């Protein structure tokens, strides 16, 4: 009964698009393609931080690999004027994510930090979210993977090891965000500061092409860089409003 009352008294709240008027934090990323060299350090860093499985050659050949962040490469032009461009592709944490609506059991949803989260325990593996995702950044555990001993000693205790039949994807290293929040609380701070958190990929990036931060904070580096003239979002016409802004690589033929 009280629920029904709630439903009608707060009707306007339940009808508010996106529900949140504003996120506590709006974690975002800016990736400067003019700095990115495609060295793939981020890929291994992510693998190490998030316990991504070693799938082996056979599985890999079947496209069953799991890489939360990958480098996509696109050629343009012909020899000798061929150009190769790299673009790191990871979960865009869209504010209007096509994937979230798809899940029948709410295993993926948008949390208060503006993160597009994936709840492994809740997932039943319909794989609908992956089909709906235009960026191909959701990965499915087709099997339960194992580590040759003693490789499993490296596994990060802060991150679950996913079992077969579960969908997974980039979390913006949510375990680091949680930890940072705890420490902030211990230090008596109510909010996190710029630079408290770095996801594994941003941390490893040797050229500092990946910048992570809170887009709500106008002084934050992401907020400022996102307004760069070179800024754009991938597949904007799909209107998914991603949290990741890319800065176009400068093409400068004239030398």
């Amino acid at each position: 009964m009280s629920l029904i009352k709630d439903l009608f008294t707060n009707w306007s709240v339940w009808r508010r698009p996106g529900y949140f008027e504003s996120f506590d934090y709006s974690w975002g990323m800016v990736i400067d393609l003019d700095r990115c060299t495609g060295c793939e350090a981020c890929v291994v860093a992510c693998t190490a931080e998030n316990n991504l499985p070693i799938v082996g050659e056979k599985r890999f050949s079947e496209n069953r690999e799991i890489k939360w962040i990958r480098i996509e490469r696109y050629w343009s032009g012909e020899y000798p004027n061929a150009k190769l461009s790299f673009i790191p592709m990871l979960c865009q944490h869209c504010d209007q994510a096509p994937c979230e609506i798809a899940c029948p059991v709410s295993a993926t949803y948008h949390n208060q930090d503006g993160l597009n989260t994936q709840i492994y325990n809740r997932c039943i593996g319909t794989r609908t979210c992956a089909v709906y995702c235009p960026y191909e950044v959701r990965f499915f555990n087709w099997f339960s993977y194992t580590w040759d001993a003693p490789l499993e000693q490296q596994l990060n205790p802060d991150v679950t090891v996913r079992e077969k039949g579960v969908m997974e994807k980039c979390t913006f290293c949510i375990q680091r965000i949680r930890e940072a929040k705890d420490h902030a609380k211990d230090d008596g701070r109510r909010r996190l500061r710029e630079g408290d958190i770095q996801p594994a990929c941003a941390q490893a990036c040797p050229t500092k092409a990946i910048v992570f931060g809170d887009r709500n904070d106008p002084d934050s580096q992401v907020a400022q860089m996102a307004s760069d003239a070179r800024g754009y979002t991938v597949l904007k016409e799909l209107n998914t409003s991603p949290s990741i802004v890319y800065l176009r690589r400068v093409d400068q033929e004239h030398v």
Partner: protein
Amino acid sequence: MSANIIGVYQYADDLLDAAGRLKASGFDEIELMSPIPLHGVEKVLGPKKSVLRRFALFGAIVGGVGGFLMAALSAIVFILPTSGRPIVPWPPFLIITFETTILLGTLATLIGFFFSANLPAWKDRPYLPAFSDNRFGVHVGCDEDAAEKVEKIMLDAGAEKVERVKT
């Protein structure tokens, strides 16, 4: 002390004729039994009322409202925003509502049927197997002393045979 008399007919028109006569001579407890739905029974025994419609309507309404509430309330009891949509969006929830409407409508109709046709009947009732094959029958419940009269009417109307069954 009452008697149950069943008349067996080969022809449907004889049956209706018999039913007419029995009614005319003041017997109310008349049941016709046939392998197929008979037309024109109302003409003889008067129109029938059925609560079935109300069941169906009621079920459908309950289903509709209940369906929407289920969707809406379950959405607000554990708030999981998705895809920048409202927590309680119309289009999806109307689909849910539609489905539940149909579901409960159907079930209510089923219950309504059992109720109004007073089925299921677990204990035997006046009946002869032939009625599911190719014979038509009429069953009258009356007082012991009126029994002969009933049998006479039935035979006059061309009954093949008349039986007294006990219940």
